């Protein structure tokens, strides 16, 4: 059974969002997503300063089997990509909700509200509906 921490928000496309102390947002992929992908061997994260639109592909996670895009849950400015993943993509498998975060964004309140993020309970239902 994959983990779905209660203190995070989620998207139906298997990303999680954490609000940091300074109000910026940290984004990663869920336990369900990393497990489905299998061993990750390459992760490309966006560069700081990049402006992204909601739904835009802004990171790539590749396992031995396949490459998957990670989409921005909302519009905003990337303030950091996780620099550790270039040399250690497997961190996303071993600690997807912690050291395996992908990137951080600064997002306007309206953009965040428009994103329609899911609670942990709502995301769990999405997973259940997908049979996993």
């Amino acid at each position, binding site marked *: 059974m994959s983990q779905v921490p209660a203190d995070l928000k989620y998207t139906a496309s298997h990303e999680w969002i954490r609000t940091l102390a300074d109000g910026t947002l940290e984004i990663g992929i869920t336990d369900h997503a990393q497990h489905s992908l*299998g*061993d990750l*061997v*390459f992760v*490309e994260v966006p560069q700081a300063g990049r402006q992204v639109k909601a739904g835009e592909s802004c990171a*790539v996670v*590749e396992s*031995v*089997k*396949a*490459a998957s895009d990670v989409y921005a849950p909302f519009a905003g400015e990337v303030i950091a990509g996780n620099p550790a993943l*270039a040399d250690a993509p497997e961190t996303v498998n071993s600690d997807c909700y912690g050291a395996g975060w992908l990137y951080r964004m600064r997002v306007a309140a309206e953009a965040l509200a428009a994103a329609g993020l899911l609670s942990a309970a709502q995301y769990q239902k999405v997973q259940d509906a997908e049979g996993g």
Partner: protein
Amino acid sequence: MGRRTPLFALHESLGARIVDFGGWDMPVQYTSQIAEHHAVRRAAGVFDVSHMCVVDLAGERSGELLRHLLANDVARLQTPGKALYSCMLNESGGVIDDLIVYRDPGVPGVAYRMVVNAGTRDKDLAWIGAQARPFDVGVRERTDLAMLAVQGPQARERAVQLLRTQDEAAALALGSFSGAQFGEWFVARTGYTGEDGFEIMMPAADAVPAWRKLNSLGVTSCGLGARDTLRLEAGMNLYGNDMDETTQPFESGLAWTVAMQPAQRQFIGRAALEPLARAGSPRQLVGLLLLERGVLRGHQRVATSAGAGEITSGTYSPTLERSIALARVPAGAGGDVQVEVRGKPLAARILKPPFVRNGAARIAL
């Protein structure tokens, strides 16, 4: 639901992720594809390859049939149990399938045993059956057998512990690309990983206890995911990816498997290959090593100094910790090339496979 091997329930109980593979429900991985890969390179792993299609040929003219049916020449098989890798071609020289054929496998009444791919079973059986009729050769699919591949530097010493004590020494003495019957089991020193090991065909009911015993001997359960990265590191082709009915052996890295001598042997596809054998094939299958971060995948475009080509199989190599591929490129291409990976041109280098054999890198990184 797809077809299932006698080991399906065991795979599920071992926590395997099951995927469709050529119409079969097969385990792609149990724990970690990379860990399973390393287990085979460093120790021993076992794969369920029962989906592959075993075909026994019976009849005096079986050898004559195969010298007509196959691009490689079974006359090269000098001793019972000896194995040969070959393509089976159509009249245009395209590859219907690739297969292993064993001479005199030690089964009463069986002259040759062939192992063909699961995904091509139906067309293969139809083709072989049609070709066999004039030779009065009996063709029998052995759906009663399961097949395990036990592969890795420690595979043979562990796998022989499945046999009766009196058979262990003889099984360990099998030469490379040779097999023999031990009781109801056919044990062959063949494989698809670039490591030493056995492929064992056995009655279906024996497969689950054999697998459990191998696990208890420290042999790791391995899925088809690891099988794919292992074969690609070993520079071995995958039918349907690296060659098919629209490509011929000379542009698929398989010239070594086509016996153009003796010149009078009229195998199917020979007429189409002869001009290519004389003039050279306009395309070739080569190895690629990615020089940058990223992962090479099938169908990515390759730009070379001799023109454009395409990746036929690409993956991440767990042994080399780099991305590798097989690619079909114009003849004469070599050196450094560019591959379009997710919209970006990345630098790669043309190399001669294999990339890895017997646990060690065969290329300079």
